[in-house]
């Protein structure tokens, strides 16, 4: 019998997992598994809670994307109670979402991913980390830290909390934005946009060309894509319909509350994380050469499924990206590129929203009456399409919760990418820490 290489824990990701790479007697890869070891059970322990408390409970699912859960949950509760938030409330929710996502994208690119690209994938782990990055490019690092703090401060000064927010409420938001708050935020948003442009340029000059070989080889798979689009096919983080694209680029659109017709979740005995799959494509098959039912979500999926971005600078980047890599673009490491296209859009949209006169409207909360109902609330989280499906009883207490969160959608493709990377990199029993790190890079690209 061959042996098993364990990579544990998987590092520079926001979760708990390990990789097991199974080798045969000749030292070649026969199988890999990504074991997700965490499970908390939100779907059960939210039962019985007053629905209006949900947005401030389920944000705790993820400390890095609490705003995504907070907003998907608010939308689900809005739908359970049959209430439509006023336009200004939606704009404020969108504004907070964009600012939060800017911080998230900066964090991932510079703190989690950059060590592999700025320091190098084969470097020793003692320097292949954010501290190494700080030493290598101290001026940029200082800017990064400042920008992250700025996004956190913008959220906190206005909405109280950056992590685990309470601002979005059933039927709207908890407070309006004053003119004073708006004008204080505007120059900061401008600065974030400039930094986003700098980041895109930095990556295009210094990272992507240098690692083109890695991009074309590490974790490459050919599967489908899922993401939100507006009625006209434009990218949207907050609202729209879901678009499920096949590997060949053909697609089908469906309303959020039809998700059960399109998405199933498979369970494997070796992972707490389920494996969502595209039901209509057949029974899930985790076969690298002939995968069935496998689709990806998160930024690469979104830039693949949309017809266009929502803002001009991001659109220009999408055009350049598509000219180089086609649609759909399948190289896994292009997640890093797609993430920065979205970073630009977030920054442009934050500015747009702050310049919208309606943003300071006092009409920010609709009247809410608890009642029995079902609500499917979806947003695009940084890590993918986020589905919150609630049912309430006549008192407005939660009776059922079903959640499919961003990274869960990516469970099957991450497993395939790891298998692909391990097979491509490990031969005749030869591997070192650099090679194993490259296998992890296939995971990190998804930002799980």
């Amino acid at each position: 019998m061959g042996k098993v290489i364990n990579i544990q824990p998987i590092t520079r990701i926001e979760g708990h997992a390990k990789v097991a790479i199974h080798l045969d007697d000749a030292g070649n890869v026969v199988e890999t598994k990504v074991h997700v070891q965490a499970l908390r059970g939100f779907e059960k322990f939210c039962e019985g809670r007053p629905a209006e408390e949900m947005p401030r409970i389920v944000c705790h699912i993820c400390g890095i994307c609490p705003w995504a859960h907070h907003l998907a949950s608010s939308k689900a509760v809005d739908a359970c109670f049959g209430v439509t938030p006023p336009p200004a409330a939606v704009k404020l929710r969108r504004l907070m979402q964009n600012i939060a996502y800017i911080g998230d994208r900066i964090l991932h690119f510079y703190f989690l991913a950059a060590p592999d690209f700025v320091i190098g994938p084969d470097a020793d782990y003692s320097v292949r980390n954010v501290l190494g990055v700080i030493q290598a490019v101290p001026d940029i690092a200082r800017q990064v830290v400042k920008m992250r703090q700025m996004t956190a401060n913008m959220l906190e000064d206005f909405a109280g909390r950056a992590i685990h927010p309470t601002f979005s409420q059933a039927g709207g938001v908890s407070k309006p934005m004053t003119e004073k708050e708006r004008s204080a935020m505007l120059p900061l948003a401008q600065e974030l946009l400039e930094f986003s442009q700098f980041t895109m340029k930095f990556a295009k000059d210094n990272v992507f060309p240098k690692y083109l070989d890695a991009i074309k080889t590490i974790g490459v798979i050919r599967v489908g894509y899922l993401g939100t689009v507006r009625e006209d096919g434009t990218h949207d983080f907050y609202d729209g319909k879901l678009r499920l694209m096949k590997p060949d680029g053909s697609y089908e659109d469906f309303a959020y509350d039809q998700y059960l017709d399109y998405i199933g979740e498979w369970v494997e005995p070796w992972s707490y994380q389920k494996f969502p799959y595209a039901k209509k494509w057949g029974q899930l098959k985790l076969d690298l050469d002939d995968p069935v039912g496998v689709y990806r979500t998160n930024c690469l999926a979104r830039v693949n499924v949309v017809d266009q971005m929502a803002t001009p600078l991001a659109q220009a980047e999408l055009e350049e990206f598509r000219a180089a890599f086609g649609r759909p673009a399948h190289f896994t490491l292009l997640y890093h590129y797609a993430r920065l296209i979205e970073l630009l859009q977030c920054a442009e949209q934050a500015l747009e929203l702050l310049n919208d006169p309606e943003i300071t409207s006092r009409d920010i909360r609709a009247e809410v009456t608890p009642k029995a109902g079902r609500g499917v609330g979806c947003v695009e989280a940084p890590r993918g399409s986020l589905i919150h499906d609630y049912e309430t009883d006549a008192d407005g207490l939660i009776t059922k919760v079903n959640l499919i969160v961003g990274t869960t959608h990516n469970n099957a493709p991450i497993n395939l990418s790891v298998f692909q990377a391990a097979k491509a990199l490990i031969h005749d029993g030869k591997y070192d820490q650099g090679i194993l790190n490259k296998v992890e890079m296939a995971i990190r690209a998804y930002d799980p």
Partner: protein
Amino acid sequence: MGVTVAEEWLNACSGCEISILNTGEALLDLLPHLNFVHIPVLLDHKYFGQTGEKTAFEIPEAVVGIISGGVRNEEHKHVLNEMRQKSKILIALGSCAAYGGIPAQANMFKNDEILEKVFRGSPSTNPSPNPEHSDVPKWTNTVQALDEIVKVDLTIPGCPPHPDWIADAILALLAGKTAWALPERSVCDTCPVIREKKSVGGPIKRGLTNLDFDPEAGLDKMRCINEQGFFCIGPVTLAGCAGKEGVPRCVQARTPCRGCFGPIRKGARPMVDMMGALTSVGLDPKTLVDRRAIMNRYIGAHGYLTVLPARPGK
């Protein structure tokens, strides 16, 4: 080059770690004094050697060990014990590590009920047996705080803990101190709202309408949230969510406190005390919807939340 630090996360969401990274430029000044030997979110140090070649699970020795998250499975327990053995000073970071946190709401349910729901009771899931594999750690009976299993030297509560306190505690350790704790004040002690010691009365209102306040005016012109007839657990909650200065964060958002910093002191009985606080302003605690869960939202470990016997007829 600085004091050695190891960090781990257990039944956690990564919010504590993000809070550290939000420290801003103070973080860059602090970093040269810290020598991280293990921190999965930032550093690629592995448990079984860098190529998985070792047979024993190993976290390096460190002067300071920091853990976020409570204990939900056997692996968490294992990591916690290893961290305790290898750290001179063990810090529980955040309310999950300190009190179980939101995930400890699960302590109101039996494990079997939860797993049944997740793997066989979800409309999108192909009903399947619970995952069972040597690489999928078994759940512990309940969600526990760290100090229910090992000795914890220092606790920095909060969901998330404010970076001011993280920096403060670490600086105290760097200065040679071995103890540190947040000052024993309540959220109300740091809340600028107007208090008249009596509420508007009536049953306690759910969060279905916004608070009454003037958006142009400061919080010092807003009436206390409990006195407005809503439920705010500030009276029995440890202050500090906004750091050394600043108003309570949820109140800044014009929303009530839900107790994320936990009780004001160890051994407190926040539920009993809070019922007293409500009664004292003329609100009837019995009218609070979902009372047990909401009053113990962040502190479900330590036996605060348990499975209740089924009610007859249900």
